[in-house]
Structures are given as structure tokens and as C-alpha cells.
């Protein structure tokens, strides 16, 4: 069965995919804020990353940190094949929903 993704989940998966090898907690938050044009709470971002990982859509690995982090590890994320499938499915659904609708929306169809 196809995974259903919320807006923040889609944006998070896409951010991880865009950042490729540079996708870790803080960089994902910055990318999300840039793309969504609003502040994202750290708790929401970390919880979303953990939930996507638990669902098997993302995987993560720990890597040693830089001096700016006091040598503390970074958790890097990668989009799994099932994550890409879920994103494509979400895109198809959105396209299907909006098909034939002209913008801006008026009061009546």
C-alpha cells in the first residue's frame, strides 16, 4: 500500500533529497524554512525525521562531527527507494486533484 504523506513530511523528504550528502538535522531545518517560507520548530523537524525513518522512507547514519560542533556526531539522512516512491505518489495525487482547475480560484467552478 502506498504511504500517505503530510505536507511537512513531503517537504522534509524533498529537503533531504535536495541536500543529498549534506542532509543532517540542522541543514534540513534551514532548507525546510527556506522552501516553506516560515519558521519550523526544531521539535517538529526532528520528530518528522524520526517518524519518516521509522516508516522506512528515510535511513540515517552517524558520522563524526566537525570542530564547530565540538566533535559531536552528525546524523545524516538518505531518502530510501520507498521514500522516493511515496513522494512520486504524492505528486501524482496532487496533480490529479488540481487537474483542470484554473488559478486563481473564484467563488464558483
Amino acid at each position, binding site marked *: 500500500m502506498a504511504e500517505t504523506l503530510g505536507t511537512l513530511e513531503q517537504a522534509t523528504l524533498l529537503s533531504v533529497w535536495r541536500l543529498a550528502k549534506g542532509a543532517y538535522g540542522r541543514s534540513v531545518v534551514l532548507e525546510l524554512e527556506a522552501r516553506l517560507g516560515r*519558521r519550523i520548530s526544531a521539535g517538529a523537524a526532528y520528530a518528522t525525521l524520526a517518524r519518516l525513518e521509522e516508516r522506512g522512507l528515510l535511513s540515517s547514519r552517524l558520522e563524526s562531527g566537525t570542530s564547530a560542533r565540538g566533535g559531536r556526531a*552528525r546524523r545524516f539522512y538518505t531518502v530510501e527507494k520507498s521514500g522516493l516512491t511515496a513522494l512520486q505518489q504524492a505528486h501524482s495525487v496532487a496533480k490529479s486533484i488540481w487537474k483542470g482547475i484554473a488559478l486563481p480560484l473564484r467563488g464558483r467552478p
Partner: protein
Amino acid sequence: MNEPTRIPPLADLLLRWSLTADDYEVISGDLLEELQTAISGKAAARRFWHQALLAALRLGVARRAVIGLGAFCVLAFSWFAVMEAVLRHPYYPLRLTLALLIAALSVMTIISLRGGSGARWRWVQRGWFPLGALGAWAFVSNLRAPDVEGYIALMSAALEAQSLLCLLAMPPVPRS
């Protein structure tokens, strides 16, 4: 440069208390990096930092509460199982089995929160659906009974609280 270059000791202590070892290392590293570089500006760095600390604290309090309630449930329901086995009240096999199930799930919950796979945690969370419903039923039934039993009220309230915390307040993947 006026930015602090290390996490204040009290905040560091709270983070360490709230998070598991891996999450502490990763999240405190992210926070430290934000403070050092202030990529998104000082105000944004402070906001990100406070939000992360609050989120970690909420999680830490919930995790500690679940572990505390779990330990209480293990002891209380083990005692209840022994008493049922000794006193043999009506329907004691059912009550004994339920008490042992609750004690076992509480043990699994504590083990999972101290480190384990997401798959195991998912099964633990599923287990708390029926047992949480049982706790709510026992609590309400006891309150409606002519003679309210204090120990049943306490145990069913602990069961319900543990169930709600596991289902609503805990993260999808507790890490070691």
C-alpha cells in the same frame, strides 16, 4: 563575536537528562553548530535553540514518566498476580493472565525506551491500545462500584497514564 561558543552548562545538563545518548550527541552538536555559526542570524539561532531545548525537555519528562510508571506497573501487577494466584478470587485465571500481560508489557516498554529497534517499539505501542482501554474501564468501573478500592484506582490510573504517554507523547523511534 558575541555569540556564545558553548552550550550553557544548565541547558547542557537538561539536554543530557532528556535525550538518549545518541540523540544528545546529535542534537547538542546541531545546537552548538548553530550557536557557533549562527547561519540564520542571532535571533533565529536563539529561537531554534530554545525550541530544541523545550522539545527535548518535553520528551525527557515523558520518557522518565513512562519508565517510572512502567516500574510501578511491573511491581504492582506482579504483586496483583501473586495475590490472585494465592487468594483465587472468582475469574482469577483471567485476572492473573491480564496482570502478567501488563507487567510483561511494562517491562518491554522500559527495555524499548532504554534502546531498541523501531519495530519492537511499534509492537509495544500497539499493545498499549487494548491495555489502555482496559485501564480506563477498570478505573471507571471501580469509581462506580459501591465500595471503591484504592489500590485498583491507583493501578488502573497508572495503567491509563502509561498507555496515554506511550501512545501520544513518545517519539516513533526511541534510540539508545
